[in-house]
């Protein structure tokens, strides 16, 4: 479980997060939705790419925010992160990308590493692409390889930043399902920053809505459509399609 406690963050005097407190539960897909920037900031504070001005992020009882960089290492190795664009290393093949954390943090033999790479690539349905470079595969495959790299070390926590951005609806749905399945089978605490309402309705076991830098609403995919929260309704039913669905 990840606890976010009273986090505030501002950039050049502009408050982006104000006293956010929430919990991300183990074995569930936890979604952060809201205005552009706010969800990403929460995510970056959780993974340590940003230091909150105030408050703390606690991973299973360990206060991550208060630790020195050297001591954060252990928790970092229990995290898998899927970045918005995949963030695969351009100069490495698919196999080398997935093998990278294994090379850095394990003492596995080459054969063990190969087996592990093939195992996680199979989990994300990537077959016969081990020797391809990121520039030679599609956007959906890049996301799946990035997921494979993120889960290579069996992480306890998986963070995803807009996993569906830039993907066609069908591939986006497959990525959602994949993340949901992996969360369940690996019993991870998954936190997803998204603007995609399809994802919210499909895999949102817990949804946190951030509005004007504050936590405005918390719930799940079942009660988000029936909320009487005006701001959340404006966000959820912002498109003609979702308005029609509601009608």
């Amino acid at each position: 479980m990840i606890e976010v406690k009273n986090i505030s963050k501002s950039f050049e005097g502009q408050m982006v997060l104000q006293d956010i407190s929430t919990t991300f539960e183990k074995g569930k897909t936890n979604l952060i939705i809201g205005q552009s920037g706010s969800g990403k900031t929460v995510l970056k504070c959780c993974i340590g790419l940003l230091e909150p001005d105030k408050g703390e992020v606690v991973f299973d009882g360990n206060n991550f925010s208060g630790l020195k960089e050297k001591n954060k290492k252990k928790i970092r190795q229990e995290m898998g992160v899927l970045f918005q664009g995949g963030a695969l290393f351009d100069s490495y093949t698919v196999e080398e990308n997935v093998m990278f954390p294994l090379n850095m943090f394990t003492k596995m033999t080459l054969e063990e590493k190969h087996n592990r790479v093939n195992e996680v690539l199979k989990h994300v349905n990537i077959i016969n692409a081990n020797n391809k470079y990121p520039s030679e595969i599609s956007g959906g495959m890049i996301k799946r390889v990035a997921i494979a790299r993120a889960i290579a070390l069996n992480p306890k926590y998986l963070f995803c930043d807009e996993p569906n951005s830039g993907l066609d609806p069908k591939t986006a749905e497959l990525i959602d399902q994949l993340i949901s399945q992996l969360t369940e089978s690996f019993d991870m605490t998954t936190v997803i920053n998204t603007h995609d309402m399809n994802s919210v309705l499909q895999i949102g076991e817990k949804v946190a809505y951030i509005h004007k830098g504050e936590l405005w609403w918390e719930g799940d995919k079942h009660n988000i459509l029936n909320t009487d929260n005006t701001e959340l309704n404006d966000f959820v039913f912002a498109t003609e399609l979702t308005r029609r669905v509601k009608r």
Partner: protein
Amino acid sequence: MKILTNVGDYVMVILQAFKKPDKGAVFRRQLLIDLRQLGETSIGVVAIISIFFGTIIAIQMAYNIDNPLVPKTSIGFGTRQMIILEFAPTIISLILVGKVGSNIASEIGTMRVTEQIDALKVMGINPANYLILPKITAAMLYNPVLIVFSMGLGLLGGWFSMLLTGLIPTDAYIEGLRSWYDPFTLTYALIKTEVFAFIIASVSGYKGYTVKGGSVEVGKSSTDAVVICTILIVFFDLILTQMFLT
């Protein structure tokens, strides 16, 4: 004030880069990749430029020392001194700024804007160490090789020009090359080369590492890296020359 901030940032990044690598085997592998990418791929351009410059320097030397009172061997001597003292270490380093420096800045800058550096950081890896240290090491190992290679080809180019133009007999040119040789000139040239190699790799690495924004900023950081490295190389050339040769 901004310059001081940048110098401070540069020192911080380089201190991060010089920490002990997370894993020796990974560092060695990255070093081999960088030796190939930064060093081996520069051989061609260094060879072409060195031969042509050697030729030009020898011809200009012959043109300027066209005096019956000055021995013909001075052409070989002057060409050698110019190539060893200045052309090979400084001009080739300036050319490497354009090739290697811009390559480093744009590669690391692209990794920054595509979140690859963030990916390294969240894995618990020191990105500055992983990305910049092998490049600095590769540059400092390979640049002296390139510079000595350039010296040889430059002197050979001079010999070719004498052979083709007949300005002086090649025997006189070779005798000039072998006259009044002070081994310290080579030491001085190699010290300069190491300092310039460090400047090229570290400044370009820093410029790429601290990029913020998108592709336009990556391009700008690459240009900035080239400009800053060029100025620093000329500046340190003056300082080192003053230190060692006066």
